[in-house]
Protein backbone atom coordinates (compact mmCIF):
# COMPACT_ATOMS: atom_id res chain seq x y z
CA UNK A 1 0.00 0.00 0.00
CA UNK A 2 2.87 2.33 0.81
CA UNK A 3 4.24 1.68 -2.66
CA UNK A 4 0.93 2.58 -4.27
CA UNK A 5 0.66 5.71 -2.19
CA UNK A 6 4.20 6.68 -3.14
CA UNK A 7 3.40 6.34 -6.85
CA UNK A 8 0.32 8.52 -6.39
CA UNK A 9 2.19 11.26 -4.55
CA UNK A 10 5.19 11.12 -6.88
CA UNK A 11 3.02 11.37 -10.00
CA UNK A 12 0.96 14.18 -8.49
CA UNK A 13 3.96 16.25 -7.46
CA UNK A 14 5.73 15.89 -10.75
CA UNK A 15 2.59 16.79 -12.70
CA UNK A 16 2.12 19.91 -10.56
CA UNK A 17 5.68 21.13 -10.99
CA UNK A 18 6.36 20.06 -14.58
CA UNK A 19 2.95 20.19 -16.26
CA UNK A 20 4.47 20.75 -19.69
CA UNK A 21 6.22 17.42 -19.58
CA UNK A 22 3.98 15.14 -17.55
CA UNK A 23 0.47 16.44 -18.03
CA UNK A 24 -1.59 13.90 -19.95
CA UNK A 25 -4.51 16.23 -20.70
CA UNK A 26 -4.77 19.58 -22.45
CA UNK A 27 -5.95 22.65 -20.58
CA UNK A 28 -8.31 23.49 -23.42
CA UNK A 29 -9.30 27.16 -23.45
CA UNK A 30 -5.76 28.21 -22.52
CA UNK A 31 -3.85 25.63 -24.56
CA UNK A 32 -5.15 24.63 -27.96
CA UNK A 33 -4.95 21.20 -29.42
CA UNK A 34 -3.63 20.92 -32.95
CA UNK A 35 -5.95 18.64 -34.88
CA UNK A 36 -4.63 16.33 -37.58
CA UNK A 37 -4.57 17.90 -41.06
CA UNK A 38 -7.27 15.53 -42.28
CA UNK A 39 -9.64 16.29 -39.42
CA UNK A 40 -13.11 17.14 -40.65
CA UNK A 41 -13.69 20.36 -38.76
CA UNK A 42 -15.40 22.83 -41.04
CA UNK A 43 -15.99 23.14 -44.78
CA UNK A 44 -14.34 26.03 -46.61
CA UNK A 45 -15.68 27.44 -49.88
CA UNK A 46 -13.77 28.94 -52.74
CA UNK A 47 -16.36 31.26 -54.30
CA UNK A 48 -14.34 31.85 -57.44
CA UNK A 49 -14.19 28.16 -58.25
CA UNK A 50 -17.86 27.42 -57.66
CA UNK A 51 -19.99 27.15 -60.78
CA UNK A 52 -23.37 26.59 -59.06
CA UNK A 53 -23.62 23.06 -60.41
CA UNK A 54 -25.57 21.97 -57.28
CA UNK A 55 -23.83 18.58 -57.14
CA UNK A 56 -22.89 19.07 -53.49
CA UNK A 57 -26.40 20.12 -52.52
CA UNK A 58 -27.93 17.13 -54.29
CA UNK A 59 -25.50 14.59 -52.84
CA UNK A 60 -25.74 15.81 -49.26
CA UNK A 61 -27.38 13.05 -47.16
CA UNK A 62 -29.44 15.50 -45.12
CA UNK A 63 -29.66 18.39 -47.56
CA UNK A 64 -28.02 21.01 -45.39
CA UNK A 65 -26.48 22.99 -48.27
CA UNK A 66 -28.59 25.81 -49.73
CA UNK A 67 -27.46 27.24 -53.06
CA UNK A 68 -28.95 29.94 -55.21
CA UNK A 69 -27.35 31.43 -58.28
CA UNK A 70 -28.02 33.37 -61.40
CA UNK A 71 -26.53 33.59 -64.88
CA UNK A 72 -24.46 36.64 -65.58
CA UNK A 73 -23.79 37.74 -69.12
CA UNK A 74 -20.37 39.06 -69.86
CA UNK A 75 -19.91 41.25 -72.92
CA UNK A 76 -17.76 39.65 -75.62
CA UNK A 77 -14.05 40.38 -75.54
CA UNK A 78 -13.92 41.47 -79.18
CA UNK A 79 -16.76 43.00 -81.17
CA UNK A 80 -18.75 40.33 -82.92
CA UNK A 81 -17.73 37.60 -80.44
CA UNK A 82 -20.04 35.40 -78.40
CA UNK A 83 -21.66 36.65 -75.21
CA UNK A 84 -20.16 34.68 -72.31
CA UNK A 85 -22.51 33.31 -69.70
CA UNK A 86 -21.15 32.71 -66.26
CA UNK A 87 -22.98 31.20 -63.31
CA UNK A 88 -22.63 33.35 -60.23
CA UNK A 89 -23.39 32.46 -56.64
CA UNK A 90 -26.06 34.43 -54.81
CA UNK A 91 -26.28 32.25 -51.80
CA UNK A 92 -24.23 29.33 -50.49
CA UNK A 93 -25.20 28.37 -46.97
CA UNK A 94 -24.20 25.32 -44.99
CA UNK A 95 -26.27 24.60 -41.93
CA UNK A 96 -23.76 23.13 -39.49
CA UNK A 97 -26.56 22.33 -37.09
CA UNK A 98 -27.68 19.71 -39.62
CA UNK A 99 -24.34 18.76 -41.19
CA UNK A 100 -23.22 15.19 -40.52
CA UNK A 101 -19.59 15.88 -41.45
CA UNK A 102 -19.47 13.05 -43.94
CA UNK A 103 -17.48 14.94 -46.57
CA UNK A 104 -19.49 13.78 -49.57
CA UNK A 105 -19.88 17.39 -50.82
CA UNK A 106 -16.10 17.88 -50.78
CA UNK A 107 -15.61 14.65 -52.69
CA UNK A 108 -18.19 15.19 -55.41
CA UNK A 109 -17.21 18.80 -56.19
CA UNK A 110 -15.81 18.67 -59.74
CA UNK A 111 -14.32 22.18 -59.60
CA UNK A 112 -12.46 22.05 -56.26
CA UNK A 113 -14.55 24.70 -54.58
CA UNK A 114 -14.94 22.92 -51.25
CA UNK A 115 -12.20 21.95 -48.80
CA UNK A 116 -12.00 20.52 -45.33
CA UNK A 117 -10.41 22.63 -42.64
CA UNK A 118 -9.61 21.23 -39.20
CA UNK A 119 -10.86 24.36 -37.39
CA UNK A 120 -13.35 23.50 -34.69
CA UNK A 121 -14.08 26.67 -32.75
CA UNK A 122 -17.35 27.89 -34.12
CA UNK A 123 -19.92 26.99 -31.52
CA UNK A 124 -22.80 29.39 -31.12
CA UNK A 125 -25.32 30.28 -28.46
CA UNK A 126 -28.23 30.23 -30.89
CA UNK A 127 -28.91 27.39 -33.27
CA UNK A 128 -29.72 29.71 -36.17
CA UNK A 129 -26.23 31.14 -36.05
CA UNK A 130 -24.83 27.75 -37.09
CA UNK A 131 -25.92 28.57 -40.65
CA UNK A 132 -22.73 29.85 -42.25
CA UNK A 133 -23.17 32.06 -45.30
CA UNK A 134 -20.83 32.15 -48.27
CA UNK A 135 -18.62 34.94 -46.95
CA UNK A 136 -18.02 33.14 -43.70
CA UNK A 137 -17.30 29.91 -45.58
CA UNK A 138 -14.85 31.84 -47.75
CA UNK A 139 -13.02 33.00 -44.61
CA UNK A 140 -12.42 29.40 -43.60
CA UNK A 141 -10.37 28.92 -46.77
CA UNK A 142 -7.34 30.49 -45.12
CA UNK A 143 -7.30 27.76 -42.50
CA UNK A 144 -7.11 24.87 -44.97
CA UNK A 145 -3.81 23.11 -44.28
CA UNK A 146 -1.45 21.70 -46.91
CA UNK A 147 -2.01 18.03 -47.63
CA UNK A 148 -0.16 15.61 -45.37
CA UNK A 149 2.66 13.54 -46.77
CA UNK A 150 1.74 10.00 -47.64
CA UNK A 151 3.09 6.64 -46.67
CA UNK A 152 5.16 5.28 -49.57
Amino acid at each position, binding site marked *: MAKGLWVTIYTMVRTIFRPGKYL*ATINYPLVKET*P*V*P*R*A*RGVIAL*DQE*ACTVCMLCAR*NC*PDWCIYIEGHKEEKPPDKPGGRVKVRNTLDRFDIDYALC*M*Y*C*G*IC*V*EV*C*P*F*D*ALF*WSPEYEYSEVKMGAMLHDMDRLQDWLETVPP*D*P*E*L*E*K
Partner: protein
Amino acid sequence: MVVDRDLVRHLSESSVSVELQTEEMTLNIGPQHPSTHGVLRLVARVDGERAFDVQPVIGYMHRGYEKLSEVRTYPQITTLINRIDWVAGYANEIPFVVAAEKLLGLEVPERAQYIRLILTEMARISSHLIFMASYPLELGAATPLFFALRERERVLDLLEGVTGGRFHPNFNRIGGVKPAYGSGSSTRKVIQDLPAGFLAETREAMDRVLEAVEELELLVADNEIILARTKGIGVLPVDVAASYGVSGPNLRASGVPFDLRKVEDYLPYHLFDFEIPTGENGDCWDRWYVRLLEIRQSVRIIQQAIDGIPSGPLQAKVPKIIKVPKGETYVRAENPKGEMGYYLVSNGNQGPYRLKIRSASFSNISILPWILEGVLVPDIIAIMGSLDFVLGDVDR
Protein backbone atom coordinates in the same frame (compact mmCIF):
# COMPACT_ATOMS: atom_id res chain seq x y z
CA MET B 1 -9.30 -11.80 21.23
CA VAL B 2 -10.54 -15.32 21.24
CA VAL B 3 -13.24 -15.93 18.66
CA ASP B 4 -15.84 -18.43 19.50
CA ARG B 5 -15.80 -20.50 16.30
CA ASP B 6 -18.99 -22.30 17.12
CA LEU B 7 -20.83 -19.09 17.66
CA VAL B 8 -19.62 -17.60 14.39
CA ARG B 9 -20.69 -20.66 12.46
CA HIS B 10 -23.97 -20.67 14.21
CA LEU B 11 -24.67 -17.03 13.31
CA SER B 12 -23.75 -17.48 9.67
CA GLU B 13 -25.91 -20.54 9.28
CA SER B 14 -28.90 -19.17 11.03
CA SER B 15 -31.81 -18.02 8.93
CA VAL B 16 -34.93 -16.11 9.57
CA SER B 17 -37.52 -18.67 10.38
CA VAL B 18 -40.48 -16.32 10.25
CA GLU B 19 -41.78 -15.80 6.72
CA LEU B 20 -41.67 -12.07 6.11
CA GLN B 21 -44.64 -10.74 4.23
CA THR B 22 -42.76 -8.63 1.68
CA GLU B 23 -44.52 -6.81 -1.06
CA GLU B 24 -43.31 -7.01 -4.61
CA MET B 25 -42.20 -3.73 -6.09
CA THR B 26 -41.64 -2.49 -9.62
CA LEU B 27 -38.29 -0.79 -10.00
CA ASN B 28 -37.41 1.23 -13.07
CA ILE B 29 -33.75 1.25 -13.94
CA GLY B 30 -33.16 3.88 -16.56
CA PRO B 31 -33.93 5.20 -19.17
CA GLN B 32 -30.98 7.37 -18.23
CA HIS B 33 -29.08 5.20 -15.84
CA PRO B 34 -25.30 5.66 -16.10
CA SER B 35 -24.69 1.93 -16.48
CA THR B 36 -26.97 1.43 -19.46
CA HIS B 37 -24.65 2.90 -22.15
CA GLY B 38 -27.44 4.97 -23.58
CA VAL B 39 -31.15 5.13 -23.01
CA LEU B 40 -32.30 1.68 -22.00
CA ARG B 41 -35.08 1.17 -19.51
CA LEU B 42 -35.29 -1.95 -17.41
CA VAL B 43 -38.57 -2.66 -15.67
CA ALA B 44 -37.61 -4.92 -12.80
CA ARG B 45 -40.12 -6.55 -10.49
CA VAL B 46 -38.23 -7.03 -7.27
CA ASP B 47 -38.95 -8.70 -3.99
CA GLY B 48 -36.54 -7.17 -1.54
CA GLU B 49 -33.10 -7.51 -3.10
CA ARG B 50 -34.09 -10.18 -5.57
CA ALA B 51 -35.39 -9.41 -9.02
CA PHE B 52 -37.61 -12.10 -10.43
CA ASP B 53 -38.70 -10.50 -13.67
CA VAL B 54 -36.75 -7.95 -15.68
CA GLN B 55 -38.03 -6.63 -18.99
CA PRO B 56 -35.91 -4.33 -21.12
CA VAL B 57 -37.76 -1.50 -22.86
CA ILE B 58 -35.96 -0.40 -25.98
CA GLY B 59 -36.66 2.08 -28.73
CA TYR B 60 -35.60 5.35 -27.14
CA MET B 61 -32.71 5.62 -29.59
CA HIS B 62 -34.59 4.49 -32.69
CA ARG B 63 -33.50 6.59 -35.64
CA GLY B 64 -35.03 4.56 -38.46
CA TYR B 65 -31.86 3.85 -40.40
CA GLU B 66 -33.36 0.91 -42.27
CA LYS B 67 -36.12 3.11 -43.64
CA LEU B 68 -33.82 6.10 -44.22
CA SER B 69 -31.50 3.89 -46.26
CA GLU B 70 -34.29 3.27 -48.77
CA VAL B 71 -34.32 6.94 -49.76
CA ARG B 72 -30.56 7.45 -49.83
CA THR B 73 -27.94 6.53 -52.41
CA TYR B 74 -25.24 3.99 -51.65
CA PRO B 75 -22.45 6.50 -50.89
CA GLN B 76 -24.76 8.37 -48.52
CA ILE B 77 -25.64 5.28 -46.52
CA THR B 78 -22.12 4.82 -45.15
CA THR B 79 -22.68 8.11 -43.33
CA LEU B 80 -25.72 6.69 -41.59
CA ILE B 81 -24.35 3.28 -40.67
CA ASN B 82 -21.35 4.87 -38.99
CA ARG B 83 -23.74 5.91 -36.28
CA ILE B 84 -25.20 2.49 -35.51
CA ASP B 85 -22.52 1.36 -33.10
CA TRP B 86 -20.69 4.57 -32.40
CA VAL B 87 -18.02 2.99 -30.24
CA ALA B 88 -16.66 1.16 -33.28
CA GLY B 89 -17.98 3.20 -36.17
CA TYR B 90 -15.39 1.99 -38.59
CA ALA B 91 -16.25 -1.68 -38.20
CA ASN B 92 -19.91 -1.01 -39.10
CA GLU B 93 -19.12 0.16 -42.60
CA ILE B 94 -17.32 -2.98 -43.70
CA PRO B 95 -20.21 -5.45 -44.11
CA PHE B 96 -22.33 -2.89 -45.95
CA VAL B 97 -19.73 -1.93 -48.53
CA VAL B 98 -18.77 -5.59 -48.95
CA ALA B 99 -22.43 -6.43 -49.60
CA ALA B 100 -22.68 -3.74 -52.27
CA GLU B 101 -19.38 -4.85 -53.82
CA LYS B 102 -20.61 -8.42 -53.90
CA LEU B 103 -23.67 -7.42 -55.92
CA LEU B 104 -21.58 -5.23 -58.21
CA GLY B 105 -19.01 -8.00 -58.64
CA LEU B 106 -16.13 -5.68 -57.77
CA GLU B 107 -12.64 -6.80 -56.89
CA VAL B 108 -11.23 -4.56 -54.15
CA PRO B 109 -7.50 -3.76 -54.45
CA GLU B 110 -5.28 -5.53 -51.98
CA ARG B 111 -3.91 -2.42 -50.31
CA ALA B 112 -7.43 -1.14 -49.67
CA GLN B 113 -8.32 -4.48 -48.08
CA TYR B 114 -5.27 -4.30 -45.81
CA ILE B 115 -6.13 -0.73 -44.76
CA ARG B 116 -9.70 -1.83 -44.02
CA LEU B 117 -8.43 -4.73 -41.97
CA ILE B 118 -5.96 -2.65 -39.93
CA LEU B 119 -8.53 0.03 -39.17
CA THR B 120 -11.23 -2.53 -38.32
CA GLU B 121 -8.96 -4.17 -35.80
CA MET B 122 -8.09 -0.75 -34.37
CA ALA B 123 -11.80 -0.06 -34.00
CA ARG B 124 -12.13 -3.41 -32.22
CA ILE B 125 -9.32 -2.49 -29.84
CA SER B 126 -10.85 0.88 -29.04
CA SER B 127 -14.26 -0.69 -28.50
CA HIS B 128 -12.88 -3.40 -26.23
CA LEU B 129 -10.75 -0.88 -24.34
CA ILE B 130 -13.82 1.16 -23.54
CA PHE B 131 -15.40 -2.01 -22.18
CA MET B 132 -12.25 -2.74 -20.16
CA ALA B 133 -12.64 0.78 -18.79
CA SER B 134 -16.34 1.03 -18.15
CA TYR B 135 -17.03 -2.41 -16.76
CA PRO B 136 -14.87 -2.09 -13.64
CA LEU B 137 -16.30 1.42 -13.27
CA GLU B 138 -19.79 -0.03 -13.10
CA LEU B 139 -18.57 -2.36 -10.38
CA GLY B 140 -17.06 0.58 -8.51
CA ALA B 141 -13.42 0.64 -9.61
CA ALA B 142 -12.44 3.92 -11.25
CA THR B 143 -8.74 3.36 -11.85
CA PRO B 144 -8.91 0.97 -14.85
CA LEU B 145 -10.89 3.65 -16.68
CA PHE B 146 -7.87 5.92 -16.92
CA PHE B 147 -5.49 3.14 -17.85
CA ALA B 148 -7.69 2.00 -20.71
CA LEU B 149 -8.88 5.38 -21.98
CA ARG B 150 -5.32 6.68 -22.25
CA GLU B 151 -4.45 3.96 -24.73
CA ARG B 152 -7.78 4.22 -26.48
CA GLU B 153 -7.07 7.89 -27.13
CA ARG B 154 -3.81 6.92 -28.80
CA VAL B 155 -5.61 4.45 -31.05
CA LEU B 156 -8.36 6.95 -31.88
CA ASP B 157 -5.81 9.62 -32.76
CA LEU B 158 -4.29 7.25 -35.29
CA LEU B 159 -7.73 6.46 -36.71
CA GLU B 160 -8.42 10.19 -36.96
CA GLY B 161 -5.13 10.81 -38.71
CA VAL B 162 -6.12 8.42 -41.48
CA THR B 163 -9.85 8.96 -41.80
CA GLY B 164 -10.41 12.46 -40.46
CA GLY B 165 -12.95 11.38 -37.89
CA ARG B 166 -12.56 9.93 -34.43
CA PHE B 167 -15.97 8.31 -34.13
CA HIS B 168 -17.53 8.55 -37.56
CA PRO B 169 -14.70 7.79 -39.99
CA ASN B 170 -16.84 7.37 -43.13
CA PHE B 171 -13.70 6.17 -44.86
CA ASN B 172 -14.94 3.20 -46.87
CA ARG B 173 -16.25 3.63 -50.34
CA ILE B 174 -17.75 1.02 -52.61
CA GLY B 175 -14.75 -0.44 -54.38
CA GLY B 176 -12.07 0.50 -51.89
CA VAL B 177 -11.24 3.13 -49.32
CA LYS B 178 -11.64 6.86 -49.70
CA PRO B 179 -10.52 7.92 -53.20
CA ALA B 180 -8.66 11.04 -54.13
CA TYR B 181 -10.70 14.19 -54.33
CA GLY B 182 -9.97 17.41 -56.15
CA SER B 183 -8.06 17.67 -59.43
CA GLY B 184 -10.71 19.95 -60.85
CA SER B 185 -9.93 23.49 -61.94
CA SER B 186 -7.34 24.06 -59.22
CA THR B 187 -5.38 20.89 -60.14
CA ARG B 188 -5.17 20.15 -56.45
CA LYS B 189 -5.48 16.41 -56.03
CA VAL B 190 -5.66 15.06 -52.52
CA ILE B 191 -4.98 11.34 -52.30
CA GLN B 192 -6.37 9.77 -49.16
CA ASP B 193 -3.71 7.16 -48.60
CA LEU B 194 -2.23 6.50 -45.17
CA PRO B 195 -0.39 9.60 -43.91
CA ALA B 196 3.39 9.35 -43.57
CA GLY B 197 4.56 7.74 -40.36
CA PHE B 198 1.27 5.98 -39.73
CA LEU B 199 2.68 2.47 -39.82
CA ALA B 200 5.54 3.27 -37.44
CA GLU B 201 3.22 5.09 -35.04
CA THR B 202 0.73 2.24 -35.15
CA ARG B 203 3.44 -0.27 -34.31
CA GLU B 204 4.44 1.88 -31.35
CA ALA B 205 0.84 2.34 -30.24
CA MET B 206 0.26 -1.42 -30.41
CA ASP B 207 3.18 -2.01 -28.05
CA ARG B 208 1.66 0.52 -25.68
CA VAL B 209 -1.72 -1.18 -25.93
CA LEU B 210 -0.12 -4.50 -24.99
CA GLU B 211 1.51 -2.85 -21.98
CA ALA B 212 -1.77 -1.28 -20.93
CA VAL B 213 -3.56 -4.61 -21.28
CA GLU B 214 -0.90 -6.16 -19.09
CA GLU B 215 -1.43 -3.43 -16.50
CA LEU B 216 -5.19 -3.82 -16.69
CA GLU B 217 -4.91 -7.55 -16.15
CA LEU B 218 -2.76 -7.02 -13.07
CA LEU B 219 -5.08 -4.34 -11.79
CA VAL B 220 -8.38 -6.12 -12.29
CA ALA B 221 -7.63 -9.85 -12.37
CA ASP B 222 -6.10 -9.81 -8.90
CA ASN B 223 -8.82 -7.70 -7.39
CA GLU B 224 -10.75 -9.65 -4.78
CA ILE B 225 -13.87 -7.52 -5.00
CA ILE B 226 -14.17 -7.68 -8.77
CA LEU B 227 -13.63 -11.43 -8.77
CA ALA B 228 -16.27 -11.86 -6.09
CA ARG B 229 -18.75 -9.81 -8.05
CA THR B 230 -18.16 -11.44 -11.42
CA LYS B 231 -17.12 -15.09 -10.92
CA GLY B 232 -20.10 -17.33 -11.24
CA ILE B 233 -22.48 -14.43 -11.78
CA GLY B 234 -24.70 -14.37 -14.84
CA VAL B 235 -23.73 -17.75 -16.23
CA LEU B 236 -24.82 -18.11 -19.84
CA PRO B 237 -24.95 -21.72 -21.03
CA VAL B 238 -24.12 -22.48 -24.64
CA ASP B 239 -27.54 -23.78 -25.68
CA VAL B 240 -29.37 -20.76 -24.28
CA ALA B 241 -26.89 -18.37 -25.89
CA ALA B 242 -27.32 -20.09 -29.23
CA SER B 243 -31.10 -20.09 -29.04
CA TYR B 244 -31.18 -16.35 -28.34
CA GLY B 245 -28.73 -15.59 -31.15
CA VAL B 246 -26.03 -14.23 -28.86
CA SER B 247 -22.82 -13.74 -30.81
CA GLY B 248 -19.36 -12.29 -30.53
CA PRO B 249 -17.31 -12.29 -27.32
CA ASN B 250 -20.41 -13.10 -25.25
CA LEU B 251 -20.80 -16.39 -27.08
CA ARG B 252 -17.09 -17.14 -27.02
CA ALA B 253 -17.03 -16.57 -23.26
CA SER B 254 -19.43 -19.50 -22.99
CA GLY B 255 -16.85 -21.68 -24.69
CA VAL B 256 -17.86 -21.70 -28.36
CA PRO B 257 -14.90 -20.90 -30.63
CA PHE B 258 -17.12 -19.23 -33.23
CA ASP B 259 -15.57 -16.24 -34.94
CA LEU B 260 -16.78 -14.92 -38.28
CA ARG B 261 -13.26 -13.76 -39.07
CA LYS B 262 -12.38 -17.42 -39.50
CA VAL B 263 -15.63 -18.41 -41.20
CA GLU B 264 -16.38 -15.65 -43.69
CA ASP B 265 -14.09 -14.00 -46.22
CA TYR B 266 -15.18 -10.37 -46.14
CA LEU B 267 -11.61 -9.31 -45.36
CA PRO B 268 -8.40 -11.32 -45.91
CA TYR B 269 -8.19 -12.68 -42.35
CA HIS B 270 -7.10 -16.08 -43.63
CA LEU B 271 -3.67 -14.60 -44.37
CA PHE B 272 -3.00 -13.92 -40.72
CA ASP B 273 -2.23 -16.06 -37.80
CA PHE B 274 -4.46 -15.56 -34.77
CA GLU B 275 -6.38 -17.55 -32.22
CA ILE B 276 -9.94 -17.41 -30.98
CA PRO B 277 -9.91 -16.97 -27.22
CA THR B 278 -12.74 -18.71 -25.42
CA GLY B 279 -13.97 -18.75 -21.85
CA GLU B 280 -14.92 -21.72 -19.74
CA ASN B 281 -17.92 -20.88 -17.60
CA GLY B 282 -19.70 -18.14 -19.50
CA ASP B 283 -19.96 -15.91 -16.45
CA CYS B 284 -19.34 -12.17 -16.20
CA TRP B 285 -15.68 -12.70 -15.49
CA ASP B 286 -15.15 -14.79 -18.63
CA ARG B 287 -16.87 -12.16 -20.73
CA TRP B 288 -14.44 -9.56 -19.41
CA TYR B 289 -11.41 -11.76 -19.79
CA VAL B 290 -12.23 -12.97 -23.32
CA ARG B 291 -12.29 -9.38 -24.51
CA LEU B 292 -8.94 -8.75 -22.89
CA LEU B 293 -7.49 -11.73 -24.73
CA GLU B 294 -9.10 -10.54 -27.95
CA ILE B 295 -7.26 -7.23 -27.74
CA ARG B 296 -4.01 -9.20 -27.76
CA GLN B 297 -5.11 -11.15 -30.83
CA SER B 298 -6.13 -7.94 -32.60
CA VAL B 299 -2.72 -6.46 -31.86
CA ARG B 300 -1.19 -9.58 -33.34
CA ILE B 301 -3.24 -9.21 -36.53
CA ILE B 302 -2.32 -5.54 -36.87
CA GLN B 303 1.38 -6.23 -36.40
CA GLN B 304 1.30 -8.88 -39.12
CA ALA B 305 -0.74 -6.65 -41.43
CA ILE B 306 1.66 -3.72 -41.03
CA ASP B 307 4.57 -5.94 -41.98
CA GLY B 308 2.82 -7.27 -45.05
CA ILE B 309 0.93 -4.27 -46.38
CA PRO B 310 1.31 -4.17 -50.17
CA SER B 311 1.46 -1.02 -52.25
CA GLY B 312 -0.95 -0.34 -55.06
CA PRO B 313 -4.19 1.41 -55.83
CA LEU B 314 -6.80 2.19 -53.20
CA GLN B 315 -9.87 2.09 -55.37
CA ALA B 316 -11.30 -0.22 -57.99
CA LYS B 317 -12.82 1.24 -61.13
CA VAL B 318 -16.25 2.46 -60.06
CA PRO B 319 -18.60 4.66 -62.06
CA LYS B 320 -19.45 8.07 -60.65
CA ILE B 321 -23.10 7.21 -60.21
CA ILE B 322 -23.25 3.79 -58.61
CA LYS B 323 -26.18 1.63 -59.64
CA VAL B 324 -26.14 -1.76 -58.00
CA PRO B 325 -27.61 -4.51 -60.22
CA LYS B 326 -30.75 -6.38 -59.24
CA GLY B 327 -30.25 -8.99 -56.60
CA GLU B 328 -30.07 -9.66 -52.91
CA THR B 329 -27.30 -10.71 -50.60
CA TYR B 330 -26.47 -11.08 -46.95
CA VAL B 331 -22.99 -10.23 -45.68
CA ARG B 332 -22.07 -10.68 -42.06
CA ALA B 333 -18.96 -9.63 -40.25
CA GLU B 334 -17.42 -10.00 -36.83
CA ASN B 335 -17.93 -6.64 -35.17
CA PRO B 336 -16.50 -5.89 -31.73
CA LYS B 337 -19.95 -6.55 -30.27
CA GLY B 338 -20.74 -9.66 -32.29
CA GLU B 339 -22.20 -10.59 -35.61
CA MET B 340 -23.27 -7.65 -37.70
CA GLY B 341 -24.97 -8.35 -40.99
CA TYR B 342 -26.66 -6.44 -43.78
CA TYR B 343 -29.36 -8.00 -45.91
CA LEU B 344 -29.29 -5.88 -49.03
CA VAL B 345 -32.03 -6.04 -51.66
CA SER B 346 -31.41 -4.03 -54.78
CA ASN B 347 -33.73 -3.47 -57.72
CA GLY B 348 -31.15 -1.77 -59.86
CA ASN B 349 -31.46 1.79 -58.60
CA GLN B 350 -29.02 4.19 -57.00
CA GLY B 351 -30.23 3.22 -53.56
CA PRO B 352 -31.24 -0.09 -52.01
CA TYR B 353 -34.80 -1.34 -52.15
CA ARG B 354 -34.49 -2.73 -48.64
CA LEU B 355 -31.65 -2.86 -46.16
CA LYS B 356 -32.14 -5.08 -43.15
CA ILE B 357 -29.58 -4.48 -40.45
CA ARG B 358 -28.80 -7.33 -38.11
CA SER B 359 -26.93 -5.73 -35.25
CA ALA B 360 -25.14 -7.65 -32.56
CA SER B 361 -26.31 -5.74 -29.51
CA PHE B 362 -29.99 -6.27 -30.29
CA SER B 363 -29.63 -10.02 -30.09
CA ASN B 364 -27.28 -9.76 -27.15
CA ILE B 365 -29.73 -7.84 -24.98
CA SER B 366 -32.61 -10.12 -25.89
CA ILE B 367 -31.03 -12.51 -23.39
CA LEU B 368 -31.61 -10.03 -20.54
CA PRO B 369 -35.02 -11.32 -19.32
CA TRP B 370 -33.64 -14.87 -19.18
CA ILE B 371 -30.29 -14.10 -17.59
CA LEU B 372 -31.62 -11.58 -15.05
CA GLU B 373 -34.30 -13.88 -13.67
CA GLY B 374 -33.84 -14.30 -9.97
CA VAL B 375 -30.61 -12.34 -9.55
CA LEU B 376 -29.84 -9.72 -6.93
CA VAL B 377 -30.38 -6.08 -7.85
CA PRO B 378 -26.65 -5.17 -7.76
CA ASP B 379 -25.96 -8.13 -10.03
CA ILE B 380 -28.31 -6.67 -12.64
CA ILE B 381 -25.73 -3.96 -13.27
CA ALA B 382 -22.86 -6.45 -13.24
CA ILE B 383 -24.51 -8.76 -15.77
CA MET B 384 -25.85 -6.01 -17.97
CA GLY B 385 -22.47 -4.31 -18.15
CA SER B 386 -20.71 -7.55 -19.03
CA LEU B 387 -22.86 -8.05 -22.13
CA ASP B 388 -21.27 -4.90 -23.60
CA PHE B 389 -24.02 -3.43 -25.72
CA VAL B 390 -24.44 0.01 -27.19
CA LEU B 391 -27.93 1.40 -27.44
CA GLY B 392 -27.34 2.81 -30.90
CA ASP B 393 -26.62 -0.73 -32.00
CA VAL B 394 -29.78 -2.03 -30.31
CA ASP B 395 -32.24 0.45 -31.76
CA ARG B 396 -30.65 1.51 -35.07
